[in-house]
């Protein structure tokens, strides 16, 4: 009984010391893991670009759009789908999570879709379709606070209803022909080059909704290098880059939605939560260029 008291006290002291020790170790490793990449000088190992990619080849075509026309097959103009191989008008998140994918990495079972490009009324699919996840266009401290897309988030970019280039954020250029000035409408690419389309998605989320009645207002583009107060959560900037195996006279080209400036993109996020969180933590926030596996290049 006499010895019980001091023994118990020393044990609780030991527990406290162990807890503090463990905390310090965790704190130490956290600080190291978060500051080490930032301390890595350019040129040592890491390439200082906040980026990881998913390359997703063409999967299928349907006149469907599960974001804009959920449950209404055939209601849309023709779309070309990338990533998940099952997407149609009825697709829900569980369908995507269970589906196979055309993406590298294979863990990305998200769905991406765009209006189909026609060359003389014959559908043309991109030979290269890359979806870059970037930390750019905002201040460095905003990039450092980037959050992953929530599972099931639906995003749209571009303006399918654009009446002219002024209403559009589309960007057309030529792969391997940088001297051709980019345009919001189709450009004439020299023989041997490919027509390419760039489209940037909004990167500021309202932190609450996976979708909104107009399918746009739950996200916003940055203002003055930061996310506006209405959409305070900075998420990766999704940049869609499509390379089409066509060149020459653009009067032969049209999109299912109309002229080149009606280019738009839809994204339905189904990345496994941990895979996306890891990439945001290891590539975007510390500003490191990663490969398809989400590891530094």
């Amino acid at each position, binding site marked *: 009984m006499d010895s019980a008291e001091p023994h118990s006290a020393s044990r609780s002291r030991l527990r406290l010391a162990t*807890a503090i020790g*463990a*905390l310090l170790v*965790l*704190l130490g490793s*956290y*600080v190291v893991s*978060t500051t080490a990449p930032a301390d890595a000088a350019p040129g040592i190992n890491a390439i200082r670009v906040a980026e990881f990619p998913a390359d997703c080849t063409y999967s299928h075509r349907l*006149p469907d759009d*599960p*974001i*804009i*026309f*959920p*449950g*209404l*097959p*055939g*209601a*849309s*103009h023709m779309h070309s789908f990338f990533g998940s191989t099952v997407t149609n*008008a*009825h*697709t*829900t*998140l*569980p369908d995507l999570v269970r589906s196979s994918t055309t993406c590298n990495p294979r863990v990305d079972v998200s769905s991406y879709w765009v209006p189909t490009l026609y060359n003389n009324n014959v559908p043309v699919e991109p030979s290269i379709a890359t979806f870059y996840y970037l930390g750019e266009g905002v201040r460095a*401290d905003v990039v*450092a*606070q980037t*959050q*992953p897309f*929530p*599972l*099931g988030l*639906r995003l749209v970019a571009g303006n*399918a*209803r654009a*009446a002219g280039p002024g209403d559009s954020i589309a960007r057309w250029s030529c792969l391997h022909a940088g001297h051709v000035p980019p345009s919001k409408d189709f450009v004439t690419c020299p023989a041997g080059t490919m027509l390419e389309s760039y489209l940037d998605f909004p990167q500021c989320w309202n*932190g*609450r*909704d*996976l*979708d*909104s*009645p*107009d*399918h746009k207002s739950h996200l916003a583009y940055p203002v003055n290098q930061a*996310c506006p*107060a209405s959409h*305070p*959560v900075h998420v990766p900037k999704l940049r869609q880059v499509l390379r089409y195996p066509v060149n020459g006279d653009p009067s032969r080209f049209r999109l299912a*939605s*109309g002229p080149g400036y009606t280019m738009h993109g839809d994204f339905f996020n189904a990345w496994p*939560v*941990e895979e996306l*969180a890891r990439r945001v*933590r290891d590539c975007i926030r510390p500003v490191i260029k990663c490969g398809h596996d989400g590891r530094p290049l």
Partner: protein
Amino acid sequence: MRAALALLLATVLLVTGCAAGAPPPTPGTPPPLLSGVPPAPAADPAAPGGSPTAAFPGVAGQFNGTDIAWLQLTVAMAERLLPMLALVPNRTTDPSWERLTTRIEATERTHLTRSRRLLADSGAPVTNPHEGHDMPGMVTDAELTALRSASGRAFHQLLAGHLRAHLTQSVRIATAERQGGDHPATTALAAAVVRAGTADLARLDRLDPPPTPPPAPAPPQ
């Protein structure tokens, strides 16, 4: 362990001062994603019984995404068709075409009024998300221009093609709305659109036999 991690993160935030630049968290809501887990969304498609067609926050309860998308598209399609029908009296004197288009116009106006009212009830955006957007079954500006300079048999043929495209698409998406919609008055309107559209397609086929076999009629329900 969880508590230790939370304490750790709090410590790190305090030590590094990161919290200063962070957006103020909503009271009672954990800051999203420090744990890598997204916050509970308002409309969670993964929730049991949920789907992307679940009602949006702020949108009256019984309308799902399919109801709203269908109402918006139905309004947009009717608004495209009516200017074409308005051309008919000046471009033809054939009474059978006048009869058919007068009948279709009356039906479209009735359905347009009901669609607009339901859309207002739903609280969904009043702006037409399909304005200026050429969707399947819609008459384009270029086609409208071509109609304005056509007459006689050429006009009848163009008119028949556009009417057939419109009615076929209307019946197709209204059939999908009957199956995928939730709101009773909206699915009832979809049923009326299917009925009227199928009957008008049959009248059109008698007046202008289709070049290819007509699409299968909507299954009766």
